[in-house]
């Protein structure tokens, strides 16, 4: 992250948008939204210095409820869009948001390659364990057997082991927050935005309208701050165990982080030593030197 020095620090009010919130009462999106604003302000970022990319879903409906350069695109596609934006201008922090439906169904390939590529972006998963915006269908993270809008007899498929999948991809940053703990989410988001590489952040999100099995109260009783409990994020085995074993208690906080693995852009040989961004480099190029071999 590398943004211009500012004399006037940003205020929370700069992120205020006049667009009215439209989430249901008690929706976890309010908490995540608030934590994002806190994190950006605490990182000293003005709205014009950030790029926020949203997927489609209830989470994506947050795109016009905050200031900043925002993008609200297609269902399941936010990761490659955000990656393209970042590669074009490495000076701007790029944060992508998506639901569990978008991430683990429609766009799961993008997630896999996003983590694998270690794009230097932050990815925030709004995990409300269902498709909110399309009125409560099961996602691949909904518990097997749970009856949902289009599965009155309970979904037949088994639940996708999301964290096992993530850890199988050699991630460089994995964190988990809970929409009811803004302080914790803020701390996680700040670390994620500062991380050099793909930061995977899961936010366990209450959805009082459609998720009656993992409610705010349920999550509140089960989650705990693993870092406060002494968890060391550099311990891969422990991180994986904490991330995947969620039966009794749900570990939150920064579960895993490695800063020594070069991210995608750092691995691009042609960009080594290039100080400018692709955005700054748009001009007419003399290509005659490239056609010498064709003569």
């Amino acid at each position, binding site marked *: 992250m590398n943004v211009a020095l500012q004399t006037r620090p940003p205020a929370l009010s700069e992120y205020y948008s006049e667009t009215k919130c439209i989430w249901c009462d008690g929706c976890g999106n309010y908490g995540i939204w608030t934590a994002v604003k806190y994190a950006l302000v605490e990182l000293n970022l003005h709205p014009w210095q950030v790029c926020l990319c949203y997927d489609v879903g209830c989470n994506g409906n947050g795109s016009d409820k905050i200031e900043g350069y925002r993008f609200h*695109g*297609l269902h399941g596609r936010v990761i490659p869009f955000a990656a*393209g934006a970042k*590669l074009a201008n490495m000076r701007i922090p790029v944060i992508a948001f998506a639901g569990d439906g978008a991430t683990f169904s429609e766009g799961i390939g993008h997630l896999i390659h996003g983590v694998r590529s270690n794009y230097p972006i932050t990815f925030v998963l709004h995990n409300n364990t269902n498709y909110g915006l399309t009125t409560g269908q099961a996602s691949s993270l909904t518990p097997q057997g749970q009856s949902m809008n289009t599965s009155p007899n309970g979904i037949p498929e088994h639940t996708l082991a999301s964290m096992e999948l993530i850890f199988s991809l050699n991630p460089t940053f994995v964190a988990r927050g809970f929409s009811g703990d803004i302080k914790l989410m803020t701390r996680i988001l700040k670390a994620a935005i500062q991380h050099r590489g793909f930061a995977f952040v899961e936010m366990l999100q209450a959805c009082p309208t459609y998720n009656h099995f993992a409610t705010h109260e349920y999550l509140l009783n089960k989650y705990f701050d693993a870092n406060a409990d002494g968890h060391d994020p550099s311990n891969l085995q422990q991180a994986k165990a904490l991330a995947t074993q969620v039966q009794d208690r749900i570990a939150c906080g920064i579960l895993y982080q490695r800063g020594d693995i070069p991210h995608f852009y750092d691995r691009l040989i*042609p960009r080594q030593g290039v100080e400018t961004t692709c955005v700054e480099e748009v001009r007419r190029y003399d290509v005659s030197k490239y056609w010498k071999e064709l003569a």
Partner: protein
Amino acid sequence: MVGASGQGVNSIGAIIAKGLKRSGYCVFGYREYPSLIKGGHASYQLDISNQRIRSTETKVNVLIALNHHGLELNMEELKPGGIVLHVTPGWQFPEHHQKLIAERSLRVIYFPVDDILDRLGARAILSNVLLTAFVWSMLDQDLDALKSLVGEKFAKKKALLELNMRCIDEGFSFVDPEQGRISVALPPPDTDFAGHLLITGSQAMGLGAVHAGVRLYAGYPMTPSSPLLSFVAELENKTHMVVKQAEDEITAAQIVSGAMYMGTRALTATSGVGFDLMSETLSLNAMIENPTVFVLAQRPGPATGLPTWTAQSGLLQAANCSAGEFTRCVISVSNSQDAFDLMPVAFNLAEQYQISVIVLTDKQIAEALYTQQPYDLETAEIDRGRLVVDPEKLKLLKSSDRFDPHAKSGVSLRWLPGSEAATYCAQGDEHNSMGAVDESSLNTKSQMEKRLKKFHGLKAGFPAPHLSICGRSATTTDWMDTGDEIELLAIGWGSTGDVLQDVMCSDELRGAEDRLFALHLSLAAPHRRTSEIGHAVETHRPGGAELSGAVGHAHQDGMRHGYPG
């Protein structure tokens, strides 16, 4: 040159083409091959002239067969007096080919490749060099010129170089024991061509893209778009571009969109069903008014179709595929000249109108080898449309300027993330002037109208289609002057344009110069109206040439300058 894929048909073609071009000939290389890596039947045809040629003839003067299948399959294509050069020991021509040889007075030469290779202790792969050298001597070309050409290729591999040179000597000095020395007379060279480039359409497009300021390329391999991806990748260490082989076409399109939204120039290319996958991104870009350029390298057939063959079958796909209605621009390149020239044009149009531009090409253009005049590097402009970068002007912006429905021509101001200014949302849902969701009928109507309005500006700026008489560029006055005399009007677009030019200049049509017209279109959408073209043809009116959305031939009509600023 015919043989199996993997036998080196292309390398013989490419080296002879380069040598002849340096000697002052215009060559046109044309490749045909099936979708497999080894085996099958592949060919490389070189047409050679001391005048400008732009396409291939169907008949050939010399057939070089690297295997007997080539003899079986291609003998019919020889012209009377032609030469058959083959390498199959003890080959007995079947009766119908013997008849053909007699009727057309063909000369058959057996070139004992295996014997020579054995003698030299060289591997089979060097048969290409042997053959190339023999053909080179048949064409009465200079031995040293060939040596220096091959030398350039193996400059870094000393041992290989020596063996290659011995093969060249052997091949060059080979004399058929029965027929003696054979010479194929070429017309006198025109030294002008010596300074030209030998370039494929894909390479031309890649250079055009770099020239236009493209700094990021993302693509997924699919013939015939793959050579473009390989070419930009080959250049990446020199251009310092970001080149990314994406996991699929959806990703490639989204990466490019993200990069363009951020403000660089980015490109992707694909073919057929790959473009289907990109079409959701096309729709998205229309809604967020994000300029983008897609190259659609057409291939024949639905689905996987005929991957390695050519057709102009993607026009309606490019012009129509989408969710909902919006303005887009479809242009088609015709040859290596406008494959280069139209890339800056495509990016300028995309940024001027904040729309997607789809550039059509096909396998013929992508892989054909053109003798190309070095490109003009002075005239192309980088026009970024209504992009605001000046810090003072940025400060004056309001969020609502970004998608202001009252903007002239429907094109509002655009500024980039990271600019110290009021921010906005590039919103995929229907939105108001600053990008906030607004599904009211009033807003929807004004935003839809805003986006569709771009069509008129775009259309108004295009020049008339290019008209030519027997290869000569013509004006509409020429057309009018002929009155009712037009006997034939051939209408083409894309790669057929050059074929038409060659047909019009052919010996067979000499004498009919004033009555044969070719009309060439490079622009396919905004919606071209075939009824208007038909009307223009029927009435022979010059005014009819101002077809809806039709543009002239780029390099001759100065298309670059004809576009709206």
